[in-house]
Every structure is written in structure tokens, then in C-alpha cells.
């Protein structure tokens, strides 16, 4: 583990991002459960260190591709909480005019190229964005988020092989929470303990890290982003983490109780808070103040969504073809 010594400001920024995701998702869970939204939602609670640690290394003109569990990615990339929440409520003021909801948030103005509902479909698209960077000759990079289960999808194999062979500027980030929906990864993958080894098969570097240590995530991705920007190609980073909630809100919990307890006690936000307190970067009062301020922002996003209009039916007929 080769962590970088981070500036205080950066540590606080990582903390703020993780808190934003956590409080947004917890609030989202509550309003969803209360029946204020339709459809389905997949919460990022427990995995915040990954989105925060990755996106803190990215500029606005770098790209990310995301998944059905994607609110955290967009928040970390700088997404507008109001527009995200309005989208989850299916309102016209949402990022996608309310047309797509929780599984498909996107903000192209900050390089968030969208969240897909097909596991693994965003991986070739990330490789494509990286190909575009290479063709245009810029120093942008792409971060591609996907779960451990996605590494068993054919698109992973195809896209990673292309990126490695052509030395494309993409960082493949595995959000390894040990499970598909209810199936344990090690029952369908022989190298579940060390997904990073797959990188070797494609001729690129890979690393398995503690995905709940935001400093480790940041440091590892920092190196990978530098490699990519310098034309040295892609990296595969296996971030071990755990989702605190079920696959989707309302699902039956089938995971082992002890396992859940063990992992929730390794909460990435608690971990960082304790570290910051130890190193006198922050006080307990500061923590309360951060939480209050951010919860207020989240509440404003909910109010904004609640008050926003639903899309008119004609909106369903828009945006099929671009002019």
C-alpha cells in the first residue's frame, strides 16, 4: 500500500464528497420507502470511498461511465443534487427530463457519460471514449465503474483487451462488493479473491486494494491517471467494498448477518473521520457542522424535486432522433 500524503484540503474534499453521497443516498432511501418515487432504486451506501477517491483525480473534461448503482458516481463527479433528485422523482427538471429515473443519471457537461441498466455495457463505451481521446490527441482520461459481477460479462473481456492492446487512457474500476444480486462472486468466479489478476491476462497492470480506504483509492487511482495521461495505457483496480443495503431498495436481504455486521463496521466514512480526528485535521464539532450543512443541501434537493412539475406526455415523444 503506497499511500500518498495528502494535503488537508484534499482530505476534507474527499470527506465532503463521501458525506454528500452518503446523506443523499440515505435520504433517497427514506423518501423512496415512503412511496414518494416510482420504480426502483439501487443505493451506493457503503461504497462512497470509491467514487470519491476516483473522481477527485479527474477534471471536468475527463469522462466517467456508470452503472445502475450510479448516484454516487455522478455526485462525486460534481453532479447537481437537485437535478439528480428531480430525476429520481421523475420530474421534468431532472437531468433527463424525468424520462429515465434512478438507473440512468448523466451530466454530459461534466463528462458523466451516463449510467446504463445493462451490466457491463458501459465498459466498451468507456474504451470508445478513451479511443476518442487518443485519436484527438488530448490528455483526458476515462474512469469506468462497474461491479465484480461485470467482470464475468463478455463486454469486460472485449473492452479491456482493446484498451490494453491499444494502450488507451482508461482506468477500469471494479466496485467489488462480493455479490452480484444475491449470488456470491466466489461461486461464479475462480479468482474472486484477486480480481486484479485478470489484468495480467490482458497485459496491463492491475491492483487489488481496500475500497473502503478513500486515501488508498485516491492514491492508487492517482498513479493510474498519471499513467493514462502520459500515454502509458489502462489500469485495472479492484476495490474491495460492501454495499450496506440490498441490491435494490425493497429487496429481501439474503446475505449472512455476521458478514453484514463485519463489513458495516468497516464503514469508509467512519474510517476517514477517525483518521482525521486522530491527525487533528478536524474536530467533532466540525463533523457535525459538515453533516448539518450537507444534509441541508440534500433536503433542498428533495424539496426542489417535490415541487417540480412532472413531464408533459409529449416529452415521451421527444429525443428519439437528434436533428
Amino acid at each position, binding site marked *: 500500500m503506497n499511500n500518498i500524503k495528502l494535503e488537508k484540503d484534499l482530505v476534507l474534499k474527499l470527506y465532503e464528497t463521501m458525506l454528500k453521497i452518503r446523506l443523499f443516498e440515505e435520504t433517497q432511501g427514506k423518501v423512496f420507502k415512503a412511496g414518494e418515487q416510482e420504480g426502483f432504486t439501487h443505493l451506493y451506501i457503503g461504497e462512497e470511498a470509491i467514487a470519491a477517491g476516483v473522481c477527485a483525480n479527474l477534471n471536468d473534461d475527463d*469522462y466517467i*461511465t456508470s452503472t445502475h448503482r450510479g448516484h454516487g458516481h455522478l455526485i462525486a463527479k460534481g453532479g447537481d443534487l437537485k437535478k439528480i433528485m428531480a430525476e429520481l422523482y421523475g420530474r421534468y427538471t*431532472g*437531468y*433527463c*427530463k*424525468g*424520462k*429515465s429515473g434512478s438507473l*440512468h443519471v*448523466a*451530466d*454530459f*457537461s461534466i463528462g458523466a*457519460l*451516463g449510467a*446504463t*441498466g*445493462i451490466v457491463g*455495457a458501459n*465498459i*466498451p*463505451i*468507456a*474504451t*470508445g*471514449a*478513451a*479511443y*476518442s*481521446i*487518443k*485519436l*484527438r490527441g488530448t490528455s483526458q482520461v*476515462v474512469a469506468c465503474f462497474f461491479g465484480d459481477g461485470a467482470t464475468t460479462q*463478455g*463486454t469486460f*473481456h*472485449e*473492452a479491456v*483487451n*482493446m484498451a490494453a*492492446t491499444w494502450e488507451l487512457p482508461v482506468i477500469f474500476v471494479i466496485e467489488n462488493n462480493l455479490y452480484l444480486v444475491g449470488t456470491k462472486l466466489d461461486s461464479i468466479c475462480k479468482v474472486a479473491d484477486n480480481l486484479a489478476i485478470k489484468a495480467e491476462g490482458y497485459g496491463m497492470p492491475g491492483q487489488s486494494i481496500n475500497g473502503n480506504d478513500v486515501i488508498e483509492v485516491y492514491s492508487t487511482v492517482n498513479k493510474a491517471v498519471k499513467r493514462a495521461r502520459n500515454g502509458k495505457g489502462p489500469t485495472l483496480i479492484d476495490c474491495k467494498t460492501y454495499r450496506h443495503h440490498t441490491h435494490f431498495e425493497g429487496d429481501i436481504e439474503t446475505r449472512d448477518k455476521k458478514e453484514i455486521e463485519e463489513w458495516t463496521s468497516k464503514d469508509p466514512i467512519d474510517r476517514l473521520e477517525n483518521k482525521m480526528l486522530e491527525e487533528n485535521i478536524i474536530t467533532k464539532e466540525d463533523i457535525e457542522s459538515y453533516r448539518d450543512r450537507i444534509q441541508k443541501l440534500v433536503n433542498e434537493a428533495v424539496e426542489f424535486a417535490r415541487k417540480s412539475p412532472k413531464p408533459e406526455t409529449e416529452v415521451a415523444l*421527444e*429525443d*428519439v*432522433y*437528434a*436533428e
Partner: protein
Amino acid sequence: MREISFREAIREAMVEEMRKDKNIFLIGQDVGAYGGELRISGPMYFEFGEWRVKDAPISEQGIVGCVIGAAMTGCKGIAEITFADFMMLPMDQICNQAAKIYYTFGGQRNVPIVIITNAGGYVRATVHHSQCLEAWFTHIPGLKVVIPSTPYDAKGLLKTAINDPNPVIYFGHKFMYPMKAEVPEEEYTIPFGVADIKKEGTDITVIATSYMVHKALNVANKLEKEKISVEVVDPRTLVPLDKEAILNSVKKTGRALIVHEAHLRGGIGGEIAAIIADEGFEYLDAPIKRIGAKDVPIPFPSVLEDFVLPSEEDIENTIRELL
């Protein structure tokens, strides 16, 4: 006027557009120095280099994902999926991702890609190298479907496709590739949604696509000697479809026969017949008929393939039946 082959017409369209815009690239199996499995790209690699004429691994999902990601980030990708039969592999990337991105994300970003694929039989290539699948793609909102029958149409339509801001599925036909015909040297384009009356007539409207246009014309020319006047309408694009031209023709002749090489069941003949029955009922003096391949996989030896695929005899007999 000079004559060039169908494949040269496709190549010229790509070359002309790629000379104008350095962010356009072609990617596919063996399109590079080898010159393309069906000799479409020819010497393009030597003019444009390895990043703009890219040899891909055997990774159709990766190839299509690559052009999607690139198209969303400032480049324009043309993917060649050598045989239309292979289009089954990247169906998710085409129909779930490319087709839906503009809509899903509320019009934030369009996906300007072209997928050139080579359909059709009569070359004894049998079950996995002979299919016509245009009907599948006409069924998916968000895609445009182009199906030229001549070198002139091929070039003009492809130039339009490359400049269209949407995903365009472009069906060539391998049997027609050596066919030479007049193509102007001056630049020209053909708009989508405009059918071409390949032969004017008054007794019956034959709506035909791709290679079937030529079979229909052969039959029309033969029947002309018997004073039977056949009008051959070539839609050229299935999405958008020039409904008006089709209905105007049926209004004039009172009879309609649709001929496509794809299997009869579920082919676009059914869609066009329903449109005519719905919106042109009063024009009809006879039932609408359709000709397509028999609903069996395409067999190998000519004795069987020629029995399964539409023949000029089939077309002639059906026209006589309707008159």
C-alpha cells in the same frame, strides 16, 4: 459518366468524408492493411493510417461500444460488422445503448455512428453468412435503417449516414459488391426518407429492397414485352420510410407486391403491407402480397439456396396472380 463498383461507391463515400474530418474513423475486422474481408476499405489504411482505419479484435460488442463511446466524445466512428449475421453479437450495444442514449439522457448527447454490415445470400455462404436482418433494426426506436440497391444510392446514402447525428444501420449486400454502375464524380448526397421509383409503371407496384430491386427490374423488363406495366419502388431507407411515395404508387396502380430477401415471417413486408392496408385501403383492387425467403435457415448448395431465396420466377408468378 464513369462507372464504379458498389463496394468502391461505399469506399468513396467514407474516403470523401474522412478527408474532410480527421475525427472520423473506420473500425472493423481486417479493414486495415488487408483491405477488408469484402474488399470495401481497400487501400484506405495506407491513406489514413492505423488509428483511422483500425483492425479490431473479434469483439463485435467491443467494436460497436468503441464507436459509441467515441461518438459521444467528439469523434465519429464507422463500424464495419462484416456479415449481417454477426450483428446478433452486438445487439445490446446497438439496440439498448446506441439507440437509446439520446432519449434516455433527455437529449443531452447524441450518438452519431454508422454501422456498415453486409447482408444477403446467393453466394452459397449458408446459415451464418447469408442473412438479411433489417427488420430487427426497424423495430427499435432511435435507429435509422438504410438499404441501398445501386452504387449511386450506396454512395449518396452513406454520405448522408456519416453526417446524420443518429445511429445509422447501413445494409450492403455482398452479392452486389462487384456490380458496376454510373456514379458521378462530383459530390452528392441522397436524403433519408425518399424512395426512388426505379421503373415507372401503371399496372402494379412492386416495392423491393436491396438486391431484390434488380430481380424486380428484370421481371418488369420481361413483362413489359407483354404490355404488363410494373412500377418498381425502392424505399432506400426503411427508417425513415417514404410512406407517401409508396401510397402514391399504389393509388396509381391499385396493386401492391413487396419483395425482400429476408425471411417472409416478420419481415418488413408485413409492416409495409399493414401501412398500405391501413392508409391505402381504398386504392386496392387486389390483396397485398409479399415475397421473402422461406422461413427456414439459409442452406448451402445452390439447388437448395435458390429454392429458399426469392427468385425472379416467384416475382413473375405473383405479379401474374395479382393482375
